[in-house]
């Protein structure tokens, strides 16, 4: 490294060094989860410092999906043994689909009305929606729990999904901005005389905005997949519990009180995989949409 070449000044070197540290710090914990999930329970005791998994095995994944042979001697070394995490993955998939699809459709309907249609009462309702973002979840959860309980919907998918199914203020605002940012003329040209507005909306308007709708779908899918607080309150039974609730339960479910780390990390890795897949395929889109929400 020469001091004459300004491209390699100490300042730059420090900058790149600091960036590298940020990258390592962000990814190391994820790697540790992966490494632990691939480590055999017996090898765990002596492998804290290893960078790579020792005695690499997929056995942890087999047993958390309930696929390990019940006679396998290795089961005895683990805290939880065979568990049915597959069920939780399935529940999370159902919960996510039940929330994301109707939420985006109904939010898009409302957003379109707010952006394009003129009708009395519109601004008042829109103002109320904005005000709703000020109310903290820490205040809504008790009345919402009581409502779901009165409906007899505790430990059901509809109870878990109901508060998110018809709208979130975020989805409405996001889609309203999207409609506002496209010229009205483009849509008007596509209108067919005599067709109902609802039909035009579904057949013409929505397909026109596919990219923005796809972005919102990805963001909402991630958020719903990760949701813990509300499912933890109303959906704790095994038949409906989602991954976050299941993982939290598994932690304390061990006879000796020592958590089953290899099994828990295998659950964690399976919970991260769908997010990782979305990030690999749509990374740029996700990054840009977050930047959009920060832009003023």
């Amino acid at each position, binding site marked *: 490294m020469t001091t004459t070449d300004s491209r390699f000044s100490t300042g730059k070197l420090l900058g790149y060094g600091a960036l590298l540290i940020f990258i390592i710090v962000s990814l190391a914990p994820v790697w540790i989860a992966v490494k632990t999930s691939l480590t055999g329970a017996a090898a765990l005791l002596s492998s804290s410092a290893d960078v790579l998994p020792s005695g690499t095995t997929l056995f942890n994944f087999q047993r958390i999906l309930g696929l390990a042979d019940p006679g396998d001697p290795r089961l005895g070394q683990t805290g939880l043994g065979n568990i049915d995490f597959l069920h939780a993955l399935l529940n999370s998939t159902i919960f996510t689909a039940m929330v994301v699809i109707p939420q985006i459709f109904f939010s898009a309907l409302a957003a379109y009305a707010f952006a394009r249609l003129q009708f009395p009462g519109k601004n008042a309702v829109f103002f109320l929606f904005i005000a709703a973002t000020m109310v903290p979840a820490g205040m809504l959860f008790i009345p919402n729990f009581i409502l779901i309980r009165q409906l007899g919907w505790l430990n059901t998918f509809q109870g878990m999904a109901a508060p998110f199914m018809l709208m979130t203020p975020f989805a409405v605002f996001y889609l309203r901005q999207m409609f506002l940012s496209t010229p009205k003329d483009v849509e008007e040209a596509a209108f067919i005389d005599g067709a109902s507005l609802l039909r035009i909306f579904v057949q013409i308007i929505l397909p026109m905005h596919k990219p923005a709708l796809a972005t919102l779908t990805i963001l909402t899918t991630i958020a719903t997949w990760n949701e813990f607080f509300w499912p933890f309150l109303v959906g704790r039974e095994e038949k409906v519990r989602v991954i976050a609730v299941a993982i939290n339960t598994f932690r304390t479910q061990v006879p000796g009180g020592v*958590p089953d780390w290899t099994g828990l990390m295998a659950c964690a890795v399976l919970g991260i995989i769908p997010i990782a897949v979305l990030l690999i395929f749509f990374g740029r889109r996700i990054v840009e949409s977050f930047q959009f929400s920060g832009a003023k």
Partner: protein
Amino acid sequence: MATTTVPNQEIPVQVTAPPKIRKRSFVRGETIWGWIFILPALVGFIAFYLLPTVRAFQIGMTNWNLLGAAKYVGFANYQKLFQDEKFWKSMWVTLLYVIYNIPAQTILSLLLAVLLDRFTKSVFVRTIMLVPYLISNVIVAMIWLWMLDPILGVANFMLDAIGLGKHAFFSDTLTALPAIAAVNTWRHMGFTALLFYTGLTTIPRYLYESARIEGASEWRIFRSVTLPLLRPTMVFVLVTSVIGSFQIFDTIAVTTQGGPANSTRTIVWYIYQTAFSNMRMGYASAMSCVLFLGLVLVTLLQMRLMRSGETDLQ
């Protein structure tokens, strides 16, 4: 409902009403279609936002264990609350958590944003920085619980290796709350940096250049050019992250459940305990109303102090 999930970020919205003059009707029967289109969302809004807000205040004026009928008690819950040491303790713990969490998170993400802005335009690097934020709170907390495990955790192994010795961070009243703050700082750092990064890209480059020509140091440029022009972003970031931070719940549910010795019993955890362990819906609701009013106050104060809306760019 989502305490710290992705769509909590508010999008700046145009509140001004559209111009009243219109050329011709866009569609026939606009009023009816308008109401049909917003109806499903309006039902969801009324059922899960508007009515619960009203009901929280109503329930807060009763004693109710969910089994029998609710008994109206007026403002008795609020009187009790102001003499409840546990309530004030949990408020203090929450404030302490915000103090541990917000400055560290803001400074680190500001540093990261400046580094991203100066040294790389790579979307790939920005995607990597977003990874922690996209992982579920519960999974993040579980991974850190494992890394900080007093016997086998890798973080403790490293501390031991440099001679600091192993430490049971989550079972010590002194370190449990800072440990939880550290976990969330790690999770939110990249996301917050991305918001700052967006703010930084709006600062005109010529301002940096002219400052440099006049011989200003990097630190001076940061203080006199970058920071003032970043203020609108700063207000947005601080308001949303402080509101989120005050409602910390998920990480506590996984790691300490309020312990040890209530050293991590934050306000939302205390409300949750009061409602679901002690079945005191009325008292818990009263506390949640105080939390609500407190958050409104904090938000207004922040916006006032930071003169939001004004940028220093003429």
